[in-house]
Structures are given as C-alpha cells and as structure tokens.
C-alpha cells in the first residue's frame, strides 16, 4: 500500500516526454497507441490520467472519455467510453474499451534503443444493431493486441527533440470496433501497421503526424486514418491537443475529415 501526500503528483519524467492518451484510452498519440505509458510516473511512482476527446467529422462525431493508471512506468490500465454520433440515423453507437499495456524494455528518452511495450484492448459494444446491419461477423466484442516501439531523440533535428513510434496491431475491428468485428470480406485477425512522428518545438509544444492502417472487413471501403497534431503541454499535469484528422470513408460516407480536440490531465 502506498500513501499519497496531499499535493501528490507523479513528475518523474521530463516534461513533454510522457506522450498523450489516444482515442482508445491507451498512452499514445491521438489515434495510435505508443510504447509510452500515459503520465509522468517513474519506476517508483504511480500516475493517474484522464482525458476528454472530441472528433468532429463531416457526418459523425466521436466523443471519448478515458481514464488510466500507470504503475511504476511498467503497467498501464485504462478504460475508455466512446460515443459515436450518427446524426443521419439519429442514433449513437457506444463502445467501452478496457486496455492493458506492459512496458517490456527500454526508456523512451534514455536508452539507446526504443522503448517497447505490448498492449491489449478489449472492446465491448453496447448495442450491436448497426454493426449487424452492416454485416459484421461479431456485433458484441473484440480484442486487439499490439506491440509498439517509441523513441525520443534528443537534439537531432537542428537541436530539436524528435519522437517516432511504430505499432503493429492484430485486430478484427471495423472502425476501431464501433462497427463490430470481422465481416463478409474477412473474418480473421490481420496485422495493421500504425506510425507517428513528431518534433518538440520547445518543452511545451509538440507537432506531429500519425497514420493508422485499417482493415476492410465489411467491404464498405474502410480507409486508413491520418492526422496532424499540435500539442500544448504547459505543465506535467495538463495538456491539450488539436489535430486535423482524415478518417476516410466511414460506413459508406466518404471523406470524413475534421478536427480533433483533446484535453488531458495527469496526477
């Protein structure tokens, strides 16, 4: 058992090197889970993190509330509640994602090799009616397993710190699970590649790009996701991220682009 001092704050990492929380609740960028655990915990600390994210697209809106705990910079446990608004059908799709991430080895800043973590995301759809209607093989729940490698390079881009991440994810999820798992086109797990690259313009501002490969299980032309983000990290306890996202075709509605805004707090 540990006792929290009155002004508890896990701050044992350098500012700007803790990463963010992505749309499924895992420590990461915006759409890609990274090897980093959310929060500023070091090997002797525990951090508590929460995030609220909204993605406004042409025909849809995604709202995410997530919370996580990172223990000794080793294990991350997260839970995310996703609400996907479909105004044209006057309906909402609700999904819960429970996540675990384990840091295998490496320190994102200090080791000569990347930090590498494995993660698991268990996704449960509250109501699978839309998933079924679109031909999903499973309209209730699914699991993703991923391996991620992340590295910060100090001062490499004209003196600025740079970060990159590569993630391989085994998944059957359609649109992250919101449209169920598997479909007429494909019913088995596939490995999807995801990546991020960023530059820290100061200790408080990060700029980056992300890419997330997607399967096309339903045969509805699901497309890869991308975003460009800028994060403002005024302190170790708060950050905000604004991104321009291109989520491609979703459930037959093409060119879903829009803005992503995320507010995150950490203790």
């Amino acid at each position: 058992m540990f006792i929290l001092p009155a002004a508890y704050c896990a701050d044992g990492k350098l500012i700007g090197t803790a990463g963010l929380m992505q749309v499924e609740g895992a420590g990461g960028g915006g759409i890609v889970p990274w090897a980093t655990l959310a929060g500023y915990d070091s090997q002797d600390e525990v951090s508590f993190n929460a995030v609220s994210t909204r993605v406004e697209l042409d025909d849809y809106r995604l709202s995410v509330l997530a919370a996580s705990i990172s223990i000794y910079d080793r294990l991350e446990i997260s839970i995310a509640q996703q609400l996907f608004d479909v105004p044209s059908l006057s309906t909402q799709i609700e999904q819960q994602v429970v996540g675990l991430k384990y840091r295998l080895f490496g320190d994102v800043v200090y080791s000569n090799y990347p930090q590498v973590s494995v993660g698991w995301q268990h996704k449960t759809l509250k109501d699978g009616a839309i998933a079924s209607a679109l031909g999903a093989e499973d309209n209730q729940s699914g699991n993703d397993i991923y391996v991620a490698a992340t590295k910060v390079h100090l001062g490499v881009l004209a003196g600025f710190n740079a970060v990159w991440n590569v993630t391989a994810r085994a998944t059957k999820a359609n649109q992250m699970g919101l449209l169920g798992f598997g479909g007429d086109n494909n019913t088995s797990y596939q490995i999807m590649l995801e990546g991020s690259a960023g530059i820290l313009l100061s200790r408080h501002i990060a700029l980056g790009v992300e890419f997330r490969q997607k399967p096309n299980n339903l045969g509805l032309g699901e497309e890869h996701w991308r975003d460009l983000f800028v994060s403002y990290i005024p302190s170790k306890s708060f950050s905000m991220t604004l991104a321009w996202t291109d989520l491609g075709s979703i459930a037959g509605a093409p060119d879903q682009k829009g803005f992503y805004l995320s507010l995150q707090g950490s203790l």
Partner: protein
Amino acid sequence: MHYQLRLLMIIGIISIFLGGCSLFATSSASSSNSSASIYEQLGGANKIEEIVDNFITEIEFNPEIFPYFEKSDVSRFREKLIEHLCMLSNGPCEYTGDTMVQVHGGMGITEREFNLTVDLFINAMTKANVSHSLQNKVIATMTHTREDIIYQ
C-alpha cells in the same frame, strides 16, 4: 480552399520531417560555423561555469535533491562538474574526477530523483540563456551517464 490548406499543412509537415535539416540549416548556418563543438556553441568555459553555478543554486533550493549534497564538498563538485561538462561538450579539458559509479555508489538515487535533477539542470541552462536547441544537444551528451548514476 480546404484542400489547399490541407496540402499546405502536409507539405509543411513533410518538409519538417524529411527536409527538416535543410529547413533549419539556414538558421544554424547563419549562427556561424555549424561544425563548431557544443563547447564552442555554448561560448566556452565562462558559460559552463555559469551553468554549473546556476545548477548548484537550483540544488540548494530543492528540498528533495539538496540532502544528497549536504555533506559533499561543493567546491570540488563545482570544479569536477565543470571539467566533466567541458569534456562531454568536446572542449579542451580532461575529466580528472571519480567515475560516475564511484561518485553515486551507495546513494540509491532513484529514476525520479535523476529526472528531477535533469529538470534542475535544464533550469540552470535556461537561466544562463542557453537556447532550447543547444540545451537538447548538451543533454544528449550526458544521457549515457544515467545508467551509472541511478539505483547504485
């Protein structure tokens, strides 16, 4: 318009990542010789002394880190750290102090305390008006010492 804006942003980002060096090359070239050592970019011995003096002040005012220095010989610490930084930044010095393992052995310094001390060192450089990018380069020369400092 939307498409053009998007194109512009993508071009901007790609140029930062791929052509980043050339993008920034103008600024580093204009700040005179880009092949100068970090020691020279800092401005030599005076700047290193200023950083170390600031760092000692930062430590003195930090209740978590100060206890580690309470019984140490501050003037020796100052002298050896100046030497060490001079050597790490490719300056004309030789480090004559003990190894990092010898210095930190038995202290049981945690990762949290190490990273906090890096924060103090960054403050010391900021107060000595060292630019953000030069700070990153200085820290990059020091990171390999971490494994000999923590949990010893």
